[in-house]
């Protein structure tokens, strides 16, 4: 279907992680109008792991990530073909409800984007509109604790989330995503707007969250991918060039393109 894909995947057998999978992309193509952003990507994400999507700017990694909870629905003339399976169901089949999918597949964005309201309401809003029946106070505390933010904000839950520092705001956004108790959390370069110490905090946090959630993280930062991820997928010009255990992708890449990229020769 797409020139160049066949010989790439033929010269070596693709990496096969072991099931169960949280997300499984099958021959996914994504285009914005006539411009094709993701080409024939097949990717299996095992449960309770962290998968890093790396690649140079414009390689389609964010587009792929956003297709996994149908956030691309809001982009005009974005078309997705192929299948993305979540719990074995194709989230693009007719009748699939994007709203309920997003309840189970949360997202953290590149720039911290708390709601312009109190810290508490930032956490409770999502559960509230989805009819959460439990104890909200408890939910706020657990979510903030899991996001390693509780100690810093415990006394000021009614203050605006916008008054926090950038790193704290991003952890608030993670807490907000956690509060929904999703299966998967998608992260789109969550540390790119943060300073190194906030970045470190969030990386440590991700390693802790792995027990409860599956995390797919897009990152520009190769050191970050190495530090936090179990598996790494390298994309280039819309194609998935290589996917495998992070150590292997960085130390013994199978593809020359991957080797050039992870050694910093381009990108």
């Amino acid at each position: 279907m797409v020139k160049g894909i066949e010989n790439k995947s033929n010269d070596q057998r693709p990496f096969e992680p072991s099931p169960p999978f949280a997300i499984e992309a099958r021959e996914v193509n994504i285009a914005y109008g006539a411009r094709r952003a993701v080409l024939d990507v097949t990717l299996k994400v095992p449960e309770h792991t962290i998968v890093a999507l790396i690649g140079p700017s414009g390689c389609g990694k964010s587009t792929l990530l956003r297709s996994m909870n149908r956030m691309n629905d809001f982009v005009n003339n974005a078309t997705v073909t192929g299948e993305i399976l979540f719990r074995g169901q194709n989230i693009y089949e007719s009748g699939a409800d994007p709203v309920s999918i997003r309840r189970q597949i949360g997202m953290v964005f590149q720039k911290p984007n708390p709601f312009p309201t109190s810290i508490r309401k930032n956490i409770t809003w999502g559960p509230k509109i989805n009819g959460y029946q439990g104890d909200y106070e408890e939910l706020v505390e657990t979510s903030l604790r899991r996001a390693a933010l509780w100690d810093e904000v415990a006394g000021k839950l009614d203050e605006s989330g916008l008054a926090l520092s950038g790193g704290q705001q991003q952890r608030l956004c993670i807490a907000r995503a956690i509060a929904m108790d999703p299966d998967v959390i998608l992260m789109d370069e969550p540390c790119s707007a943060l300073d190194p110490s906030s970045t470190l905090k969030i990386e440590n946090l991700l390693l802790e969250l792995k027990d409860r959630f599956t995390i797919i993280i897009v990152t520009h930062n190769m050191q970050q991918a190495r530090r936090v991820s179990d598996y790494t997928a390298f994309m280039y010009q819309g194609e998935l060039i290589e996917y495998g255990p992070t150590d292997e992708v960085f130390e013994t890449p199978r593809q020359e393109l991957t080797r050039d990229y992870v050694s910093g020769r381009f990108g």
Partner: protein
Amino acid sequence: MVKKLLFICALFCVIVTLGIVFLLLEEAVGFFQQVSIKEFLLGTNWAPMFEPRSFGVLPLVCGTFWVTFGAALIGLPTGLGIGLFLNDFAPSWLRNLVKPVLEILAGIPTVVYGYFALTVITPWLQNLLPSVEVFNAASAAIVVGLMVLPMVASLCDDAIKAVPRSVKEAGYALGATKSEVATQVTIPSALSGIIASFILALSRAFGETMAVTLAAGSTPKITLNPFESVQTLTAYIVQVSTGDTPQGSIEYKSIFAVGILLLAVSLLFNMLAFYLVKKYRTVGE
């Protein structure tokens, strides 16, 4: 050189403003020498032309209130609705159709709106309710509501457009529907701009002259029935200044007192807008 020229331009606007205020005050002082401020503000009978004369402004305030209130009832929610719809719901072809139509609506001279009220809205109201008078507050209110609609819609549209896409996306990513995001994320985030548009609209409706003079009539009275003829503050000024009122007479002076009241309330609206916009400014750096 350019700096001086620009300074003169700026100075010009200050001088004009001061001049207008001074003129209003000067004539109004003459009025208040004959009528006490208390009688003017609290009196319930407005009969400036006939003996026994009476200068209680409340009937005019009542007429203005009906028109402003009714216009707000129609213009504000509809305008906000249009702004929200254009941003978050309308397909682009519809947006491209509605935007220019709104601009045309905003460009229609107010006297045409007045005609429209008299010849279309009033007969339509009379059709629904035969007791409606030819001149009535409701018809004026409806037409002023339509008049402020494009302004509210356009300002709300701007305010809503300024809500960062990322904040809306945060809402969607938490499993919110489009309408939940629109009402619970977008509107609160755009609140300061929305409030500003509302108050500007109120202020505009409050000061609107031509259409209400044509549609609402010239019967100063305190009434709870919006389907009766009333007179607004502005319509009274028109009535006196277009009639053959001799300069220097008390009814001539009275229009300046009414003018001061209009100015004061408009100022109040603007200050309120300023305060609320500051208070609810949540978006932006």
